[in-house]
């Protein structure tokens, strides 16, 4: 059986989700992308520094989850912990515990034993293990749990990731699993496997029927909507060309006398044509994800350049706390707005600077992580600072003399810029009111004043324009991980078909072509097998 993967929690809701892998390679795939983080002595000590009186060493996960009570007041958007708690309770993994701290405590009781374990999942089945998911585009802390066959929902080896973040992160994990050999699960496939392995209980069965029917109805609606657009048109064209080729080759096999090799000579050219069309669809995948989930915009910069002020100015309300003290924002602040119909997901980050403060360090690290998955970076600078390219404003420094400061700032700045060297970046010169009170755009540099809401709309329009010219608006986009995986598999199969042509085995070529056709069918919802025979007779004059 292939190993399947899917997001197991409802999409869109909440900041925590579960990605489930099931099949004989589940563990191997999971270990390919998940590294177990074992608490070392040093980390425990660091944790003790944070909250020595309240947090016992073995409960602390040094960077992943912040203990309650240390968030700056007013920052309430980050309700991940609550979600996590709910999920844990729902899933009832470890215990009936009512809060996450307790449950985590129970899960990691065997801390001492863990010190001797490797950083691979699998040694402790049915236990939540803390660690880091490492994907090519981002990494994130979270939990993984390994259920050893047959003691799992499906009766197969199962690994579930419980991870922060919304659809983008979860999609990313699914994609990473697919890269490591998993196949995106079909609707109801986990349930089907559970049944086939004799794992479904009466309790599971109740209500599953309704869910299946609702899901299949919604899948039909979704497919209909998808196929109605420009993307659907392109898919249909590709599918039709592939289908025509398959029919021609099939006809030549079953009616060798009549077909007289009409089709074979054109085969390589047709296949190559289809491959390049699919390639261009795959290339639009990133824009596709943007279209679905919005554009992720991360505000970065040194401390006290006015990132939070800019955030508030865009949101038109006091969302983030703004003070004159450098390093006010220590954690991420996320908020979304809709601008001209496009969703902007804004993330305000802690100002980047060297700090002794443990909390601030964590905040800085998070800011760096956010940059990795950003679609657009707003690099905020203080225009009022000398020469206009320095980040640190006059109010920031409270240590050492100004020369030292400048050298340090320059160093920090170049390090900061390295972080987003491969990203689309807009430079935002804030506090322009303090300089020459001129606002507007010059290439990718924007002069604004967050305080007086000057130049904000120019910036937003520019973001919107960039988004639009990215090819997103036309709708010819790949919209989900399943689709992307299906397209990639279709192309792999087509490549195999090309490579196999030299063997003079039309029968094998057709296996590859049908594999490609099945993969495309997962997107379009068509199944070709029945129609092939119909088409052979309507397209070709065969039979005697």
């Amino acid at each position, binding site marked *: *059986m292939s190993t399947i993967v899917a997001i197991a929690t409802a999409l869109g809701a909440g900041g925590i989700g579960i990605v489930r892998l099931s099949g004989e390679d589940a563990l191997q795939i999971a270990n390919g992308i998940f590294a177990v983080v074992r608490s070392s002595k040093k980390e425990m000590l660091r944790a003790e520094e944070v909250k020595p009186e309240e947090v016992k060493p073995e409960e602390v996960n040094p960077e992943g989850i912040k203990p309650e009570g240390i968030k700056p007041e007013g920052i309430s958007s980050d309700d991940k912990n609550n979600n996590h708690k709910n999920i844990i309770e729902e899933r009832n993994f470890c215990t009936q515990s009512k809060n996450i701290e307790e449950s985590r405590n129970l899960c990691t009781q065997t801390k001492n034993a863990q010190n001797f374990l490797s950083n691979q999942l699998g040694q402790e089945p049915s236990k939540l293990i803390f660690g880091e998911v490492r994907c090519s585009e981002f990494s994130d802390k979270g939990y993984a749990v390994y259920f050893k066959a047959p003691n799992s929902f499906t009766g197969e080896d199962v690994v579930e990731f419980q991870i922060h973040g919304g659809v983008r992160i979860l999609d990313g994990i699914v994609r990473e699993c697919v890269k490591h050999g998993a196949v995106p699960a079909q609707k*109801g496939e986990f349930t089907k496997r559970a049944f086939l392995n004799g794992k479904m209980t009466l309790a599971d069965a109740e209500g599953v029927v309704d869910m299946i*029917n609702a899901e299949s109805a919604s899948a039909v609606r979704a497919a209909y909507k998808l196929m109605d657009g420009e993307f659907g048109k392109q898919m249909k064209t590709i599918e039709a060309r592939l289908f025509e080729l398959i029919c021609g080759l099939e006809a030549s096999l079953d009616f060798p006398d009549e077909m007289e090799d009409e089709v074979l000579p054109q085969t390589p050219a047709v296949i190559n044509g289809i491959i390049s069309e699919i390639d261009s669809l795959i290339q639009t995948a990133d824009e596709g994800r943007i279209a679905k989930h919005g554009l992720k915009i991360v505000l970065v910069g040194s401390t006290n350049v006015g990132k939070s002020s800019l955030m508030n100015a865009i949101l038109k309300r006091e969302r983030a706390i703004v003070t004159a003290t450098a390093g006010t924002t220590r954690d991420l602040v996320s908020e979304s707005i809709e601008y001209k119909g496009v969703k902007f997901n804004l993330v305000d980050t802690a100002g980047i600077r060297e700090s002794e403060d443990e909390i601030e360090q964590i905040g800085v690290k998070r800011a760096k992580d956010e940059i990795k998955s950003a679609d657009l970076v707003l690099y905020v600078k203080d225009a009022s600072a000398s020469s206009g390219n320095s980040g640190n404003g006059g109010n920031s420094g409270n240590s050492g003399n100004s020369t030292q400061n400048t050298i340090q700032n320059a160093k920090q700045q170049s390090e900061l810029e390295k972080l987003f060297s491969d990203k689309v970046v807009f430079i935002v010169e804030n506090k322009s009111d303090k300089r020459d009170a001129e606002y507007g755009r010059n290439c990718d540099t924007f002069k604004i004043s967050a305080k007086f809401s000057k130049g904000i709309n120019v910036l937003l329009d520019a973001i919107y324009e960039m988004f639009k010219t990215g090819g997103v608006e036309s709708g010819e986009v790949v919209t989900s991980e399943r689709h992307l995986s299906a397209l990639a598999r279709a192309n792999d199969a087509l490549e195999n078909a090309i490579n196999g042509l030299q*063997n003079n085995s039309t*029968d094998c*070529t057709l*296996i590859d072509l049908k594999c490609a056709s099945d993969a495309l069918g997962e997107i379009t919802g068509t199944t070709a097998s029945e129609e092939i025979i119909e088409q052979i007779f309507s397209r070709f004059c065969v039979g005697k």
Partner: protein
Amino acid sequence: MDYDIIVIGGGHAGCEAALASARIGHSTLLVCLSYDAIALMPCNPSIGGTAKGHLVREIDALGGEMGVCADKSLLQIKMLNRTKGPAVYSLRGQADKKWYHNNMMSALDAESNLDLLESEVARIETENGKVSGVELANGERITAKAVVIATGVYLNGRTIIGEETKSSGPSGYAPATMLSNNLLELGIEIRRFKTGTPARIYRDSIDFSKMEIQEGEDVYSFSFMTEEKLVNLMQCYLTYTNQTTHEIIKSNIHRSPLYNGSIKGIGPRYCPSIEDKVMRFADKLRHQVFIEPEGYDNDEVYVQGMSSSLPKDVQEAMYHSISGMENCRFAKYAYAIEYDCINPIELSPALAVKKVTGLYSAGQFNGSSGYEEAAAQGLMAGINACHYIENKPAFILGRDKAYIGVLIDDLTTKGTPEPYRMMTARAEHRIYLRQDNADQRLTEDGYRLGLVKEDRYTRYKAKLAQIEELENLSHKALPKEQTSALLTVLKEAIPEHPLTLADLMRRPSVQFEHLRPLVDSKYSDNVLETLQVQIKYEGYLKKEFQAIHEQQRLEGKAIPVDLDYKTIKGLRIEAQQKLNKIKPLNLGQASRISGVSPADIAVLIVYLQKR
């Protein structure tokens, strides 16, 4: 009981059913309208072809008669699709129709458990919904525990040539007119299908010098038991229609009963009449016409590609317009034939009529077409009638096991809107269901069933041992001078390291004939070919086995036959109706029913779990 099993009909299905029943050990009666029409080939004089050749090999591997009988009757044989991959290599042989009839008669005569009777069956007798025997046209009753219907195109047969129609079976034999009404009384749905055959022309009236010669090939025969390669005795010929032919057809199309509506039966698309081809594919400048001998000393030839139901004067005009046939004389005119048949979704996958216990059916009566399709079903219906009597579970071949399985599953699960023809495109596991490994797939079953006798089984075991032996050898290095010589011939680079037979087999440029000199002649062509396919296509075969394995998990989940799907909450109405009609045996079969969606299957899964 007079007999254990009665088979109605002596065509290709009836013969295999009767032989299977008798060979398994049951007293069997074969009732047919005329002894002369036993194993008649009323249409083309050939056996096999794409996918059909696979069926013949499978029938043979199970211990059926068709392959053996064909080999004794062949005039020419060739392997089709030589350049298109091992899954679609297909044997096709030209048979002498009279020899085929005679050879089959000898096979029937050789069975001590089997009696023949020349008569017409008027009724199927039943007691409490179970078959108890038959009543003949003269009122005589014969008792039996099971009956196999294999009436071909004889039930209420009606032939059509242009404006002339008459009640008739094929080739002028009398039709069967009584059984249809009885079947309707038994609650069986009867449909009307149609097929056709081209004219027969006197050989001496054709100018073969104007045609292309079609030679036979030096290949093995159908049956595993035929040791010698066949000597090709006769040639076929190829000629073409032309614009004049097409003009004649177009200007007379209003006289075609297919076009003016006087034929109501549903004809097969893969056997289009020449008028169909000309009208539907108007841009085609010519169509192929194959001239095939009806027999070694028969003065008639079969004109393949020119089937028609146009009036005789039009037929003459169009045949005469073809190169080489300008002065041809007609022995028999082309005709269409309509006949009664069952809707095969009334059958279980064991080919049992679901409404009447102990009643089985096979062949064209089941909505198929072709000698090979008929024979395959006859064999299976015969076996399952035996198992019914013996209270054994039905013998059902999966789609992953044999073309026979695909054929019967398609018929009984999906039904068919036209006479069903086997095609390789219908077999999803085609790369595994090859003609070279039919014995490996089925002979063990045939032996267990009692159809494969010791001589065949011993020979089969020896072949398996040889394959294994050669496979072991294939991983040993070959002498370098041998492999280098071959690679030089193929203009390929010669590697430093020594090569094995398996290495060579994997190379695209290396063909079967290149390997033959490298391998001891004690390993037959068939052994070498099978191993070569196994090694060369290892990757594809591995993938196929995975797919088969996944599918088998659904096939393995049985569904009670008495399930009332109307009571299952969550199934859509259409699915409920279809499932109640088909009564699938397992989830795999259920998933193939048209109108049953994956969501319905999921609902069914949940329901079964709850039970």
